[in-house]
């Protein structure tokens, strides 16, 4: 289990070097979520709200067991409920713990223009630093999972921290600690991936879920939350978990290449004007006083 000070691996909107990567040996952490053994008790929701000491507000009832339609700025962890009809006409619950996925390649961090408003630790946790947040909501667009939520009162964006405050002290996240069934586990990425793979194999071989698999989307370089799903072919059934989550091109090649190149081209007008003056000189009103006339 990782202990000690959190080292920073990546900083949003940061032009200089980043202090942390490779400085200290640190394991990448990961949440393991086995949706097949989740009973929908919502203990993790309560634990999250309690540990993070968040105020609760009135919610919306939309004829499901879900606490609210989507996560909120003060509700980072939500079990998504889906009544899924089986082929034989009976139905099964699909329940997925929805929270920040802590992507290896975080779209929010790529999108963020504010220096230090989003950091990624070497252990893989992606954390928002509200004191540096400017409230532009670019991260909301950049996130492939619709996780960051804007608080219009504070004009800041909030999301799951993977309990970085607990993890930094060698504790497991609050949601993990509260889980009564063991469907939530916490450990190193390698360990959790191995546990998830073996659980998926068990589901395939012994429980008749021939398409069971592990959700760890390679399009984002993997995530620091992995799901074991009954049917890996259709992650969308689990509260809209995207099959191939992508960071919008606005925050990949457009931000990384097109914007700096475009800015350089636009700013080229300044040296161009200066050297025009140096080479061609001004165009004064005519006629010039004698002796000042242009000779070429």
């Amino acid at each position, binding site marked *: 289990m990782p202990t000690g000070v959190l080292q920073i691996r990546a900083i949003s909107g940061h032009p200089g070097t980043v202090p942390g990567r490779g400085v200290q040996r640190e394991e990448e952490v990961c949440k393991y979520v086995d949706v097949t053994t989740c009973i929908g008790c919502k203990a993790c929701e309560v634990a999250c709200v309690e540990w993070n000491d968040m105020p609760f507000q009135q919610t919306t009832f939309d004829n499901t067991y879900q606490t609210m339609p989507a996560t909120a700025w003060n509700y980072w962890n939500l079990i998504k409920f889906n009544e899924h009809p089986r082929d034989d006409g009976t139905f099964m619950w699909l329940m997925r713990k929805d929270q920040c996925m802590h992507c290896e390649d975080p779209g929010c961090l790529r999108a963020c223009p504010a220096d230090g408003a989003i950091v990624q630790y070497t252990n893989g946790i992606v954390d928002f630093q509200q004191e540096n947040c400017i409230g532009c909501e670019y991260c909301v667009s950049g996130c492939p999972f619709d996780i960051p939520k804007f608080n219009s009162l504070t004009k800041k964006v909030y999301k799951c921290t993977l309990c970085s405050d607990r993890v930094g002290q060698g504790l497991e996240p609050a949601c993990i600690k509260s889980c009564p069934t063991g469907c939530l586990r916490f450990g190193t990425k390698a360990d959790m991936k191995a546990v998830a793979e073996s659980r998926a194999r068990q589901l395939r071989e012994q429980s008749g879920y021939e398409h069971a698999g592990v959700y760890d989307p390679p399009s984002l370089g993997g995530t620091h939350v992995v799901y074991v799903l009954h049917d890996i072919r259709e992650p969308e059934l689990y509260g809209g978990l995207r099959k191939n989550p992508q960071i919008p091109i606005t925050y990949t090649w457009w931000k990384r290449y097109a914007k700096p190149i475009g*800015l350089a081209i636009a700013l080229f007008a300044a040296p161009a004007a200066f050297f025009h003056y140096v080479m061609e000189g*001004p*165009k004064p009103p*005519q006629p010039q006083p004698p002796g000042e006339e242009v000779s070429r």
Partner: protein
Amino acid sequence: MSTAVERFDEAARRRVGAHGRTVVRDDELLRHPVYTRVLHWSVAVFFLLALLSGLSIYSPWLFRFITPLFGGGPTTRLLHPWFSLGFVVCFALQTLNWLEPMTWTPDDGRWMRRLRVYVSNAEPVEPEYVGFFNAGQKVYFWAIVVSAIVFLVSGIPMWFPKTFGRPAADVGYVLHDIAALVMLGGFLVHIYEGTAAEPGTFRSMVRGAVERRWAWTHHPAWYREATGRDPRKDYEQARGARRAESGRQ
């Protein structure tokens, strides 16, 4: 439509003009009345503020340099749309004010085709068909009109993403960037042309008056219109007088 615009613009010009004055000496011509100057500098101030606050968010390399000017990142973000709104409102009035002299004519096409001659300063005076504004100024003006519309249409969803939805804001970011780059490039050229490149131009926007010889050099058709005299003849005459003067010495 156009008459309503003209009436509105006339009234504004009269009302604002009553609060200021333009001193025009004997060897000068009135170029920009008080109202136009006030609009121009309002646009300029709002544009500069919007440009700086926007650029700080545009690039991580500029964020740390520029945001302190506005009291830090969050206030920069808060102020940017208001600066921009000021720019859009002032520039809308400026558009009404300049709709007529900025209208594109076939002569502007001729001017654009000899852009190389203009840029290289190959001829001391402009061709006699160049009116109140030359085609370069008109291109810049219409580029701002288009960009201001793009800024507004893309900026409002970015300002209120809850109302307009994420996809609109996402497209908005890219359009906003493109419009900003066009504006930035044009703005730098505009400052250069209005100051160092053409001596005697800057006073047209601060004092409102320009030298007559400035007028026949850069805007001969406007000189003809404003004075009823032949710009070429007056130029040649002045040149002759200068020569004779130097000969005497």
